[in-house]
């Protein structure tokens, strides 16, 4: 599963970080999403799927199995 995050449309809600803290972080100044890796951290596959679904700006995309 590959993850992409669009910082341009990100509204800095930080919901992804609370769901999958090993995969996502937030920029301290702008609050926008920071991708820690382009695939889910160990044990965070479900959380990353949930992050894609809950992202208020639809800024997170998943591709592949």
């Amino acid at each position, binding site marked *: 599963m590959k993850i992409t995050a669009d910082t341009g449309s990100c*509204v*800095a*809600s*930080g*919901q992804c*970080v*609370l769901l999958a*803290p090993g995969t996502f*972080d*937030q*920029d*301290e*100044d*702008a*609050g*926008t999403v920071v991708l820690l890796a382009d695939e889910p951290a160990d044990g965070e596959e*479900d959380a990353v*799927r*949930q992050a894609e*679904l*809950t992202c*208020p*700006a*639809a800024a997170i995309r998943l591709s592949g199995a």
Partner: protein
Amino acid sequence: MTTTEETPRLPFARANALAIAPDYEALRRQAPISRVLSPAGDPAWLVTSYEEAKEIFRDKRFGRSHPAPEQASRISHAAVQDGPSGDFDTEEQEHKRMRRMLAPAFSAPRMRALGDRIAELTDRCLDDLQAAHDAHPGEPVDLTDFLAFPLPVLVICELLGVPYADREKFRGLSERIARMDGGEDAQAAMTEFKAYMTELADEKRADPQPDVISDMVAVQADDPTFTDDDLARMGAGLLFAGHETTSTRIAMGTLFLLSDTARRDRFAADPHGEVNRTVEEILRLTATSGTGLLRYAHEDVEVAGTRIMRGDAVLISSDAANRDATVFTDPDEFDPARTPNVHLAFGTGAHVCIGANLARTELRTVFPKLFGRFPGLRLAAGIDEIPVRVNRVAGGVDAVPVTW
């Protein structure tokens, strides 16, 4: 021939604190978007279906300002969510500025840093709960007095830099601005609330601290278009939103967990393992708004076959959308195993609640601590005896009598 059926008027009555008004489902069965009257008696569209709620939340053609504010439908006589806010021509730009200014303070890294402090404050509240119980053995204790109200207030005071000692003052102001039936008084309370914030901002200007009001004052120094009135309104809004809403979720969440002993025992057996999913289910099910979230159409828009005209008021009921059976199986059931649980408790889109991380951090701290310390906690009244507040923007209950 015209129909003689009356247009339903908000807010709808419900059976008890844990239930949602049955009118929402009745309306949703007919159409995703219905014609209603606001509590103030003006026409509005009410969105009760999940997909349409999500669509409108994310659609930039809907905003909080109105092209001709004096002609806009009024929602209630409260001083928040009562009618249009902001300037029609500059709304999007102003909103972006506000988000940019506040995003760092409410970000997940800041919340992680604040986590230990929230845990410490929660412990202190639970000590007070125990002390109240010990002072009058055998008598019920009101959880709202010792935990649901003070905890969010302690946290938001610290974050914003508001003195906790002023809590009775702003509690009174918050209650008055959010009353939908208080007539002129809500606006008078908003004026007082803004005066309080202006005074506080002056203090921060003279002596800046690491807090959100100091941050806003610093932004204002570089941006003269951010007026004193903007700052005061935003400060009052954050203080109101930061305690009233989370307070309601703690009270209602406790009611959900205590209303079914098996549910309480399951949670108390593994609070840390269950907490994240339980909190999401509490967020999904606690119906806290009597009206839904307000938007105005900025142009003519067609949604699900309904033609919404420029300037029309649209109330998006997250409470109703979160119980839409086409998205959530057995929507009225409390099911922490529900996955995915993509509820709309914080809204979605560009206006998604900026305090969502803060609320989640507080809720994820409070329930494991509460049930870790009092695993045998139980309600000291029947759920039907807990009075529901129907005249408040944030809904909620007046008391949660508990014992152990």
